[in-house]
């Protein structure tokens, strides 16, 4: 197990190197002069020269990449063009909000999605199954930002049950987490149902029924454990989607998370912030999927590394 974790950790290094190279190249792929793009066409030549030097754009490409990488490893992503603050400080102040949203939404989506999937599989082709699957399909098809607006309209503006702006208390997180996670509930429910149906048709489950094992033990102990591998994969992949998708929810609920930081940076061509944010979100996504890979072994001891 220890060897596997080390091997997997080493295997993500080339992925991260290429991801970092692509993120580094973003600045160079921008049509036109990136410095002019950031400072405007009429910026004084001295400011252009200073910015070119500050970003290291006067150096050969491989030197620039090496500097970018070594600085990034030390947490130095330069300063924001817009706010003049160190990028890492901007991110550090905002990342916790986004992580809270993504983790909360993942927990919500996994709990409810797995439960819906189990209920659907157990009541296959009955009313409850059909209702839950229609709800799942509806949740997958509804844009999170529209659902968030509907939730604000109903639960904040009409019923006054939840606050709709900012994250000043745990209650403020409820609507953002529910609306962010809703789409994943549907995806996880469908995957759990599908995996459970496959397992419930296995001989050993039939044997358990024949032996008179209780329904609860068969479903939660025998079937669910074996159906969890594909579900885990989806949960890992969804976490990345939720991290990126939180930009939409942050926009609707006025949360100063990393998603909003990224959008503002894209709109104002604040490339150091764009690069750092894209790199950190991708890094988180890759690491989460590494954790999921490792968890396969915990869930299914038959998996040998």
């Amino acid at each position, binding site marked *: 197990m220890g060897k596997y974790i080390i091997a997997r950790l080493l295997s993500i290094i080339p992925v991260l190197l290429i991801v970092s190279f692509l993120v580094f190249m973003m600045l160079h792929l921008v049509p036109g002069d990136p410095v002019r793009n950031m400072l405007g066409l009429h910026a004084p030549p001295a400011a252009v020269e200073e910015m070119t030097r500050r970003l290291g754009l006067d150096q050969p490409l491989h030197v620039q990449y090496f500097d970018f990488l070594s600085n990034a490893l030390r947490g130095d992503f330069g300063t924001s063009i817009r706010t003049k603050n160190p990028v890492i400080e901007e991110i550090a102040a905002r990342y916790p909000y986004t992580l809270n949203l993504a983790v909360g939404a993942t927990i919500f989506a996994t709990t409810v999605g797995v439960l819906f999937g189990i209920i659907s599989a157990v009541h296959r*082709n009955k009313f409850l199954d059909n209702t839950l699957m229609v709800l799942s399909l509806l949740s997958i*098809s509804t*844009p999170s930002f529209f659902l968030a607006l*509907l939730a604000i309209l109903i639960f904040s503006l009409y019923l006054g049950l939840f606050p709709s702006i900012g994250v000043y208390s745990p209650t403020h997180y409820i609507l953002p987490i529910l609306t962010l996670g809703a789409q994943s509930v549907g995806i996880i429910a469908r995957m759990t149902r599908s995996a459970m*149906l496959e397992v419930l048709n296995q001989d050993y489950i039939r044997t358990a029924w024949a032996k008179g094992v209780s329904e609860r033990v068969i479903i939660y102990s025998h079937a669910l454990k074996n159906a969890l591998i594909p579900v885990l994969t989806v949960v890992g992949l969804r976490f990345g989607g939720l*991290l990126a998708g939180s930009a939409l929810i942050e926009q609707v609920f006025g949360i100063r998370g990393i998603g909003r930081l990224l959008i503002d940076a894209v709109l104002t061509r604040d*490339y150091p912030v764009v690069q750092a944010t894209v790199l950190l*979100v991708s890094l988180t996504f890759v690491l989460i999927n590494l954790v999921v890979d490792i968890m396969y072994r915990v869930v299914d001891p038959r998996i040998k590394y």
Partner: protein
Amino acid sequence: MNNVIFKRLLKRKSSVIGGIIIIIFVLVAIIGPWLTTQDPLAQNLLNTYESPSSEHWFGTDNLGRDTFTRVVHGARITMTVSFVSVLAGTIAGMILGVISGYYGGFIDTVLMRATDILLAFPGLLLAIAVIAVLGGGIVNTMIAIAFFSTPYIARIVRGVVLSIKELEYVQASIVAGCSDFSIIINHIIPNSMSQVIVNTTLNLGVAILTSSALSFLGLGVQPPDPEWGAMLSQARVVMRSQPIAALIPGFAITLVVLSFSMLGDGLRDALDPRLKNT
């Protein structure tokens, strides 16, 4: 054979309903401008946030533009963006998947590692990164969506090609001296089409969600073009007093995406009945 698939598809009511709704929206996208009498961009600042009336069925927006007209015209933009981007992504993905699966070896390794890298970015993040480089607008939104849907299709097609190329009739074609191009065109591509069609249909829904999300964030289709996501973004500030301005484009997005999902599910079951109910 196609008749059998079509009959299986027709047996599933939800897919038929989904298909009909999509046809209606496609028709609206094509003949939309002739269905409305008003200009979707014409402003009337004396008439802002008007409630629904016989003149303005869904009321007016913050600049006095007719919401119904803008939703109808928005169908054209939304459908065009999703169809073109998914088609481009599918063609690119098919080419990469076929080359990767058919030739294998070094090309396969390089192409599949490249798709691994692209899949290391969450989809929406990749689209935002592409927009950050290229800028907003309709064309760049299409490129962004095509860019992130390509690796998924490439992986699926490669998997199908790997299994097809070992089949006897393909091996027989190789022995008979058929060229690679002929085998790919006549055997490989036609036999991988069922998987491609299913995934393309499902991707169309994802493309609509992504393009409307990008426009909602101000990164996709730019004002004053009537795109549903952008309309929703503009309407959210008047959610309390004028909820219909946000509800109509929101429900339009949901309905179309739902329809593509229902049709895609039906197509998957019809093309591969083993997957039914799983």
